[in-house]
């Protein structure tokens, strides 16, 4: 029976992933802010077959609570087989351009909180000598684009941080996987105009995540074709890139 911790558990990708683990009879511990959604989600996971599903409230920006919450998780689960870090906000790029406070707040939510959590989790996993740390970054971190470069900056920070941590963790038998989803139809992206051909469903992403954790993939682009799209995008010369509106 796998023991799974999910941070940002009510995000669409996290929920879809949790549902897949529930079907495998895992024990799940969920952390997020929305209690009503968490309560309903835990009922769902138990109905799907989870051995247990518990939740606690956590605002990731409330960093003073990280230690205590993680302590409680360890007390309950014992060891953690997989932690999935899935929280994030897309933010309003335009608003971030006019308002320094908002820009920094987005960065706190998407990068600083994750770095704080990963720092504690890394030490816990090192002591465990095993397990998987799965972190949702984004293709948006591969190159800054005018439409969402604040979000992209935070994700780039996460990616780079995780690359370093991945190598450090490897030495103690801990696997870290960097997950870079493309465009996904979730409440976070609702209302955005997106090219229909490229939009994936959360469950497709979840299926890829579960499989990649099993296969110990280091960096997962999901769906797979984003690897090649981003390979193209990072190689567009900046003289041309500046003229595009991506």
């Amino acid at each position: 029976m796998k023991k799974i911790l999910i941070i940002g558990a009510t995000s669409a990708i996290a929920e879809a992933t949790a549902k897949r683990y529930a079907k495998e009879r895992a024990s799940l511990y969920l952390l997020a802010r929305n209690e009503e959604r968490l309560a309903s989600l835990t009922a769902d996971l138990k109905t799907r077959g989870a051995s247990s599903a518990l939740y606690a409230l956590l605002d990731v920006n409330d960093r003073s609570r990280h230690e205590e919450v993680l302590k409680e998780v360890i007390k309950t689960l014992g060891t953690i087989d997989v932690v999935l870090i899935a929280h994030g906000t897309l933010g309003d790029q335009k608003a971030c351009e006019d308002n320094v406070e908002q820009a920094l707040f987005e960065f706190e939510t998407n990068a600083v909180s994750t770095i704080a959590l990963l720092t504690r989790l890394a030490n816990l996993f090192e002591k465990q000598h095993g397990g998987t740390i799965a972190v949702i970054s984004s293709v948006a971190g591969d190159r800054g684009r005018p439409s969402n470069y604040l979000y992209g900056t935070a994700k780039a920070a996460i990616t780079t941080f995780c690359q370093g941590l991945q190598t450090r963790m490897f030495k103690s038998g801990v696997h870290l996987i960097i997950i870079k989803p493309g465009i996904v139809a979730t409440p976070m992206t609702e209302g955005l105009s997106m090219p229909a051909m490229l939009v994936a469903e959360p469950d497709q992403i979840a299926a890829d995540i579960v499989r990649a954790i099993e296969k110990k993939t280091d960096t997962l682009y999901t769906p797979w074709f984003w690897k090649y799209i981003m390979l193209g995008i990072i190689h567009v010369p900046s003289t041309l890139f500046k003229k595009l509106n991506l």
Partner: protein
Amino acid sequence: MKAIQRIHGWGRYPIIGAEVDAPLVVSGLKSAVENYGADGMISRGLGRSYGDSSLAKYVIDTRHLNHLLDFDKNTGIVTCNAGISLADILDVFVPLGWFLPVTPGTKHITVGGAVASDVHGKNHHVSGCFSDFVEHIKLLVNPDNLLLCSETSHSELFHATCGGMGLTGIILSVSFRLMPVSSAYIDQKTIKAANLSEALALFEQNYASTYSVAWMDCLATGSSLGRSLLMIGEHAQDHKLACPAKHPITIPVEMPSSLLNRFSIQLFNTLYYNRITKQEVAHRVHYEPFFYPLDGIQHWNRLYGKNGFTQYQFVIPKEAGQEGMNKIVKKIAASGKGSFLAVLKVFGKQNDNLLSFPLAGYTLALDFKIEEGLFPLLDRLDAMVLDYGGRSYLTKDVHMSELTFKLSYPRWEEFQAIREQNGTKGIFASYQSRRLGLDT
């Protein structure tokens, strides 16, 4: 105010601008209902109704309210949020030996939509509609009034809501009975019928089969008019419950609508009819291709091009029989507009819901792309169907007139009375309900 989104039903016609609120929690849904109440709103699930029944200026999208709440493995009763899809239910419960008691031809609909459309399936003649397996629903008639409705509690509202196209409130959760099965496979038999009378006779001969449906070539004429492949099925007993993973193919973009013309469709239909050469073929197939052949092609609605399409499904009473069906099919064949295979089926008796579609008789469903001359043809078909005492399916309808609706759904006044009693008239309203004269 939310940004205006362009939305449409499965037929991609009409396309309208709407404010869409997609709450994550019940309390969020309640406040959405409060905010939009004055201007009227309609709830919407996966948008698989074909026409304008899930369209309104204010739409409450229930897709994120998609959790399972409880399952009793002794009785098979599952309780879930209304926004969960049938696909999700199948994924979870087939491996445990349970199946949907009634399923339409796609699994990509929500449970709430299944209730609101009171969907039927290939087993209607023996099992009835989806609502026949519903224990109870929780219906939000206004933000302060959440009612438990069932055969025994608020039963009038229950019978108005099942098949009520979302016009009586928003279904928040549904508790319904699954059916035990010992296999994910179906023993299928395909039988050739050279024309309509053979097809209808075969339905009668196979009335005891759990599932029966026929794919008809609606472009064939003369002595081949109504030639069909009848498919009957029973749940296999082989104890194989695991489902192999399948990857559907996708129609990536809108196709030019000229791709589907009389000749290409005739060719397809002829090939389809002749794909089996023997009179009768038996196979064991997975439930997916048996129940959901078109789900294997994602976004197949893009095949009809940018103007979209409609699916016309009507039923005529058994008394009108073969003669009636013959005349209607002739009319369609003569128009040359009929598209891919039409689906023919014999219905069992009608239920007590006020606006449910099925009644004892023959039903035919076929696609038409939206083009000039289509609506006059549909008017003529409506008139013939009405003449035989039949009606067409609100979930697919995009064109029916108010008069045709009111004559063919005689209990519409009871339906309105219940909406008025509960204060939902004018509050929960769609483009369709306005077209049909249920709202102004």
